[in-house]
């Protein structure tokens, strides 16, 4: 049906890796041949049944997929409006959605004959997932992590080391996630022949945004059939909501629903201390403008001279001044809405979730949950919301304890 194809939101990116004006391949020449090789290898793998059979086996037996789609009954009752479901990707092995993508990239790396894997990490979830899969396949793993994040996410640093990864604290720039990504790129340029860069989000040069999205789309695909099991054949969610740093868990939930016009799609950015000109937030779409960084054109937090600004969020996983290019495009064409939630709102949602559902969420999905809490009471009882519970909160209890004034003497 050519009309449907023309009108589809699911055809991107184009052959130049663009979603509208966003995306692309803004990398140095040293990396360009490898990026083209990766694209070719991914195109081959995409249609290779043995690749997907291997993925399915690992997803099922190693990660524990499918993750449940859980009806949050008490939260729904408490809010007295829409019916709320949680996609429980925090129950995955390693405690977050990150491993969905890492598995795919590591299998690709092995197909390409690469023996050394590098990754950047913010909260440490992507680093842990990468270290885990590298241990599983006996690959050398090096993780770049901002010195500031090494400090605030100590348990994940230890996990990565237990798993055999080398964790390199990044002090260049300001020692944050974006600097970790810069240093990972510098490593890659230096060791391009034996090294594969396993990017943790739907950003970076083409084909990463599309490839990571495709691997994460398992989240939305499962959600489709699981909601039918709960609610009857053909029933789609009315609203789907996910938190966004780079945007991989959100893209994974959103992508399979892009062409379902009745499904309202909401991405939640980290509003930090408030989205205003103090720029103490990570809301790239709400508070940034288009620019080029880390291999792609997207919305960025930047000053008037095009210098990149540091984001700020209570959540290390959202603390990135950019956003995946496909989100930038969905924002511009209006297919998805993007809102922001402050630290304080996320903290409140974190506690509500613990108390009502017996689930300790990560601070990242607490942002999504905070928006659910905002809108659910205004919606009718037959309105179905699915939010992505993309990570568990064990890693965040120290941060939360500090904000709640609880002294954790251990």
């Amino acid at each position: 049906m050519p009309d449907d194809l023309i009108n589809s939101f699911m055809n991107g990116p184009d052959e130049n890796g663009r979603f509208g004006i966003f995306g692309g391949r803004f990398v140095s020449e040293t990396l360009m041949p490898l990026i083209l090789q990766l694209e070719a290898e991914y195109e081959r793998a995409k249609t290779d049944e043995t690749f997907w059979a291997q993925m399915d086996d690992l997803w099922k037996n190693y990660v524990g997929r499918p993750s449940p789609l859980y009806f949050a009954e008490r939260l729904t009752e408490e809010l007295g409006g829409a019916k709320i479901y949680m996609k429980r990707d925090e129950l995955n092995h390693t405690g977050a959605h990150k491993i969905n993508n890492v598995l795919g990239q590591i299998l690709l790396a092995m197909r390409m004959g690469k023996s050394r894997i590098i990754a950047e990490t913010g909260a440490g979830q992507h680093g842990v997932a990468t270290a885990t899969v590298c241990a599983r396949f006996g690959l050398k793993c090096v993780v770049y992590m901002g010195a500031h994040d090494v400090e605030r996410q100590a348990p994940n640093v230890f996990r990565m080391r237990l798993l055999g990864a080398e964790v390199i604290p990044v002090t260049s720039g300001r020692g944050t996630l974006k600097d970790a990504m810069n240093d990972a790129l510098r490593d890659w340029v230096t060791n391009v022949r034996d090294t594969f860069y396993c990017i943790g989000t739907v950003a970076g040069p083409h084909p990463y945004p599309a490839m990571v999205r495709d691997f994460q789309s398992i989240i939305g695909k499962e959600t489709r059939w699981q909601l039918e099991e709960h609610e009857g054949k053909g029933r789609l969610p009315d609203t789907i909501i996910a938190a966004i740093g780079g945007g991989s868990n959100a893209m994974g939930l959103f992508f399979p629903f892009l062409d379902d016009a009745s499904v309202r799609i909401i991405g939640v950015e980290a509003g930090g201390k408030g989205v205003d000109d103090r720029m103490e937030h990570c809301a790239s779409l709400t508070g940034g403008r288009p620019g080029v960084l880390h291999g792609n054109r997207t919305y960025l937090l930047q000053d008037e001279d095009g210098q990149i600004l540091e984001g700020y969020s209570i959540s290390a996983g959202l603390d990135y001044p950019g956003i995946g290019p496909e989100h930038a495009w969905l924002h511009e064409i209006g297919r998805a809405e993007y809102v922001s939630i402050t630290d304080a709102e996320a903290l409140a949602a974190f506690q509500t979730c613990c108390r009502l559902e017996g689930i300790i969420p990560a601070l990242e999905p607490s942002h999504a949950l905070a928006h659910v809490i905002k809108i659910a009471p205004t919606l009718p009882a037959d309105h179905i919301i699915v939010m992505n519970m993309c990570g568990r909160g064990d890693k965040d209890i120290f941060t939360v304890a500090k904000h709640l004034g609880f002294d954790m003497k251990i």
Partner: protein
Amino acid sequence: MTRIDQKFAQLRAEGRKGFVAYVMAGDPDYATSLEIVKGLPGAGVDIIELGMPFTDPMADGPTIQLAGQRALEGGQTLQKTLDMVTEFRKGDDTTPIVMMGYYNPIYSRGVDRFLADAVAAGIDGLIVVDLPPEEDSELCIPAQAAGLNFIRLATPTTDDARLPKVLQNTSGFVYYVSITGITGAAAPQAVDVAPDVARIKAATDLPVMVGFGISTPEAAEAICSVADGCIVGSAIVKLIGEGKSPAEVLAVVAGLAAGAHRA
């Protein structure tokens, strides 16, 4: 014909190799940086490469990263970098100036506005690290239309199949990155570089200049003996970072230039 083309015509006529010196605009501050830049031609520099500071220089090693940070902390902006060239041109209308950096500050200013300002300031060429041939429509083609050279990097990973694509819209000269790595890293060996330079020269009439990792007059001489010239950045920028005076910096530059010109 840009000043770069004229310079290479002159070098060829004199049978000399070219020496390119890189400094970061505004490092450690505008006035000191301008003083150093003004002194470069007198120290034997054939082409000046002026870095445009950026917060996220992905292809640069620690030395140039820190230089960019110093410049930004000192208040350097793209406008001030353009102003610096305008100021330089008042006393020197022949030494070519190439601006090197990353795309975002240019994109942020607006490509058309940037190109008009760059031409007006007296800039001759651009090296933009994160714009491979795949993104030529962004800046490369408009820049050449505006009369600027667009100098491309070729690297050890640029194989024979890809080389024509890299050379296609390149002008001025080809910048051969002698190692897989970042600026200021391991030193290249002339014996390793020679076959790659020969391979590129077989595919283009443009001069091939070699950079990355060259830090001594001896290394400059050795590399220049197998290429049309060489580019030194980190070794100069490091001195500025150590707080050396413009005179001290220029004395070292003169030594490097002499090394290159001995070849």
